[in-house]
């Protein structure tokens, strides 16, 4: 009798202390990065609940800017969009490294991201998911597409799709033998590269069926055969490959573009406790493997790829032989102001006839 | 002048699904006459008019204007014009443009249109209003503009669809005279439909009384009034006291009847063919009944009785007296003579009244 009373008292205490600490984590992320099962497990373990808002780089920044960094407790922009946006709009708060279990991260990736997201001595981001932009090709219908500029081959007329976004500009620059990243610091040189790329993309416009905007849209176009080659994310290619073996992701000759999506804490986030808990939770290898299975991309979790199913690994290895991995062009931080130049170029590409 | 009538209908019929609105009507309207079609609402007169105008195609029969069949002529090519019930003046145009509308459609030159419009407006007594808007006119003036709009086209026949219905009483009385004057002024054939007998009686050369899709009688106003051929005409045109009676004796056209209230009447067989025992409808006009304060004055009239004054409906020249028959309590309406002899008559007074058998028109009762 006595013991049960004691036990229930403990239980009530435990529950109430948990309730006092339980927070709602408002997570601004990409599709696939927060699977239902992972959220359920997280809530069961920590008591924190999670509200997911799916978005993309530009919208994340725009949303946070509109509220001066409020409305969300954790966001996941790509690493090249962290320090520039922070400098411009001040929408993030520095990461408290002591609250992170850094041993969970692949050390090289963690260091690279820290460096890329440092502003005035403060670190603003840690890596989560990484992947590449490259070519998704229907190898039966478009066997000759090996590089971005092959999409502009007259033989591909009307069967091509890509986005009118900055990755396209960067990709074409590499494909044309330039190094846009090297020119980041020199706006004049960068503008010169942009002018050439703009001309090439305008010339290529006749080949394009439509500019795609969302992942489902491009997958639909490839699946129906209306588009036979596209510049797109590796995951899309691998997902299609599972359905139709002739479609797969191809690392372009001039190099796939590597991106790392990070964790950042918005300036006016109210659930930092839960945010750090979430980061430490999802970086556990077994959780990371679940996210990889859902999103299709690998994570910065040390040993996270061990639990990934073999089919995905096989596709990854088929698309990325060692030299292709070595050839990945990782996005450096975008200097503030560069995007204005890119935006004008993209507008002109969009408007050209 | 030829003998060809301006408008001629031959066995004209119109059937809507199961309902026959116009039943094989035939008539002729001679040139330059004012022809009215008088009937209660729903009698088919509007359908008939719309067939003449061309808005509805007849089910069978022929329609001729100046001797030529116009069945296959669309409304915008028919040599008839119509004045609509609510006039249908175009609110988006000024008066000049309204009147000149038809001429414009014919491709007449601008200067000539203006001259003709001014002339016709002057003829209807509205000179100088061409630039004003339709809304600035009074009801009677609009009426005249509507007629001018038609007359400027010099139609063979002008159709008028109860155009006075929307006017107030005083204006209506005035416009009756005005319309008749305009008709003789333009010397155009008018076909006028109305449910108002006084409009028809005052203006028309010929009146057709229409009921349930057929013409009951065609004749002049006087003929309809004094010699109605059917019970419907007798009841619809002018006022009448009605009795239901049974023929007790027939001698040629002279009848003796017994009403439902048991009064013996002497009358005239107006429809023909009534035999003793037949049910009859009997009509006596209030103005045919003579009044007297002495029984002797009315005793010899063929039909005579005494009555108590129930009420005096004083309305100037149209004053009426409602009497209650002393014998059986039946109500009877009598026109009050304008001589002033009965001006001191009051409710409850007893008077004697009577009328000639010739004024007692009897028709076979229907149903």
């Amino acid at each position, binding site marked *: 009798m006595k013991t049960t009373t004691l036990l229930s008292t403990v239980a009530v205490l435990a529950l109430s202390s948990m309730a006092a600490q339980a927070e709602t984590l408002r997570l601004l992320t990409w599709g696939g990065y927060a699977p239902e099962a992972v959220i359920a497990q997280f809530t069961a373990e920590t008591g924190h609940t999670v509200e997911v808002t799916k978005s993309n780089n*530009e*919208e994340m*920044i*725009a949303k946070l*800017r509109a509220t001066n960094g409020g409305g969300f407790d954790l966001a996941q922009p790509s690493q090249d969009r962290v320090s520039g*946006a922070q*400098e*411009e*709009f*001040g929408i993030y708060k520095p990461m408290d490294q002591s609250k992170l279990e850094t041993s969970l991260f692949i050390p090289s990736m963690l260091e690279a991201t820290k460096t890329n997201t440092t502003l005035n001595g403060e670190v603003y981001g840690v890596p989560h998911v990484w992947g590449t932009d490259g070519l998704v090709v229907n190898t039966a219908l478009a066997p000759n597409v090996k590089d971005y500029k092959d999409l502009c081959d007259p033989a591909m007329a*009307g069967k091509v799709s890509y986005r009118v*976004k900055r990755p396209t500009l960067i990709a074409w620059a590499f494909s044309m033998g330039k190094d846009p990243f090297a020119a980041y610091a020199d706006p004049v040189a960068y503008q010169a590269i942009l002018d050439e790329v703009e001309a090439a993309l305008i010339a290529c*416009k006749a080949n*394009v*069926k*439509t*500019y795609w*905007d969302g992942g489902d849209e491009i997958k639909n176009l490839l699946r*129906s*055969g*209306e588009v036979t080659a596209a510049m797109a994310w590796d995951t899309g290619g691998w997902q299609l490959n599972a359905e139709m073996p002739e479609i797969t992701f191809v690392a372009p000759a001039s190099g796939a573009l590597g991106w790392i999506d990070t964790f950042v804490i918005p300036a006016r986030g109210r659930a930092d406790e839960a945010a750090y808990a979430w980061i430490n939770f999802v970086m556990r290898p077994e959780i990371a493997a679940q996210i990889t299975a859902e999103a299709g991309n690998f994570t910065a979790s040390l040993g996270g790829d061990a639990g990934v199913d073999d089919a995905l690994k096989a596709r990854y290895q088929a698309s990325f032989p060692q030299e292709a991995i070595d050839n990945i062009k990782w996005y450096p931080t975008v200097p*503030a*102001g560069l*995007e*204005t130049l890119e*935006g*004008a170029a*993209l*507008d*002109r590409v*969009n*408007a050209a*006839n | 002048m030829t003998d060809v009538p301006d408008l001629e209908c031959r066995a004209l019929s119109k059937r809507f699904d199961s309902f026959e609105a116009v039943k094989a009507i035939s008539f002729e309207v001679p040139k330059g006459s004012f022809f009215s079609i008088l009937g209660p609402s729903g009698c088919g007169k509007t359908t008939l008019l719309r067939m003449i*105008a*061309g*808005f509805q195609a007849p089910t069978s029969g022929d329609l001729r204007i100046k001797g030529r069949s116009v069945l296959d002529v*669309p*409304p*915008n*090519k028919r040599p*008839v*014009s*119509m004045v*609509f*019930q*609510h006039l*249908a003046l*175009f*609110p*988006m*145009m000024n008066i000049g443009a309204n009147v000149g*509308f*038809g001429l414009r*459609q*014919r491709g007449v030159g601008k200067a000539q249109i203006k001259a003709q419009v001014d002339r016709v407006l002057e003829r209807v007594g509205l000179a100088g209003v061409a630039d004003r808007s339709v809304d600035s006119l009074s009801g009677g003036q609009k009426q005249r503009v509507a007629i001018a*709009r*038609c007359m400027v*086209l010099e139609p063979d026949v002008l159709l008028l669809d109860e155009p006075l219905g929307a006017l107030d009483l005083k204006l209506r009385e005035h416009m009756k005279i005005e319309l008749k004057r305009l008709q003789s002024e333009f010397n155009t054939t008018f076909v006028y439909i109305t449910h108002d007998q006084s409009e028809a009686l005052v203006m028309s050369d010929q009146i057709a009384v229409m009921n349930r899709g057929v013409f009951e009688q065609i004749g002049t106003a006087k003929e309809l009034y004094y010699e109605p051929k059917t019970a419907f005409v007798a009841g619809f045109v002018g006022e009448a006291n009605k009795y239901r009676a049974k023929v007790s004796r027939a001698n040629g056209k002279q009848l003796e009847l017994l009403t439902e209230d048991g009064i013996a009447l002497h009358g005239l067989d107006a429809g023909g063919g009534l035999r003793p025992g037949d049910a009859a409808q009997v009509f006596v006009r209030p103005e045919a009944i003579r009044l007297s304060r002495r029984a002797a004055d009315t005793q010899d009239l063929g039909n005579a009785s005494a009555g108590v004054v129930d009420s005096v409906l004083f309305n100037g020249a149209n004053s009426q007296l409602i009497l209650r028959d002393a014998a059986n309590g039946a109500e009877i309406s009598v026109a009050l003579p304008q001589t002033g002899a009965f001006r001191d008559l009051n409710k409850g007074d007893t008077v004697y009244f009577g009328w000639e058998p010739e004024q007692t028109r009897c028709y076979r009762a229907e149903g």
Partner: protein
Amino acid sequence: MSKDGSRLGLILLMAPLLLWLVTLIILPHIGLFVVSLSEKVGVRTYETGFGNYAVFFTEPLYWNTFARTAYMSIMATALTLLIGFPVAYYIAKLTRGRSKTTLFLMCLIPFWVSELVRTFGWMILLRETGVLSSFLQYLGVINGPVEFLYNDFAIMTGLVYTSMLFMVVPLVTTLDSLDDSLIEAGYDLGASSLSILREIIIPHAMPGIVSGCIVVFMLSLGNYLTPILLGGKDSLWFTGLIYSQFITRFNWELGSAFGFLLLGLSSVIVFAALKLTGQSLGKTMGR
């Protein structure tokens, strides 16, 4: 006392309208206007000026995009009127009672689903592997698949479809009020169908035509989804430009300026069209 009471009642009646106007229309516009006046000169440094507006007039791209958007919207408006007028005339004048209600509802049915779904519907019909292309191949009219999507024709189709109701409703209302006897009187006076349409029906329906055209033009000009989704690579639409300035370029200043230019220029176009056709806004809205 009662006068004060009625004034209080008036204020209470007006309060929701004023609240709506001030908080949801006027205040955001003031904010937007202030933003549009700040020129970015460096990181987190801004100057006040009309530079953002100048960008619109000096960069032919933006100017051309607006001109194209306006031109396409005007064409869409004209097309909607051309298609909507006979439809409205049929509903208002040639049907009665139940069938009238049914037809009217049929015009409304597309609006029971969201604009996105409606647009996807058109994408399913028009895409290369879509219904229309397959059907034409089945009939043997075309040999291979044909892409009907991603061109101006597709944008126009989508815009007209989206706008139809907003043209038909005011037209039906004005045509309903046209007395049939006016049309009959026109015929009776010798007019052909064409001149009745020109001289009687259209002048009468003018307020409906004008209000329908204004609404359709503004809706088309301000449409975002339809041109972007159906137009594909040629979708260039001014609202898309505003969106990209706000969202993908983080350039709120230019985006705000574009927003105000859209407001101003579209008002100018509507005003000019009213003047050209000799109509006045008061006359149109008064009915």
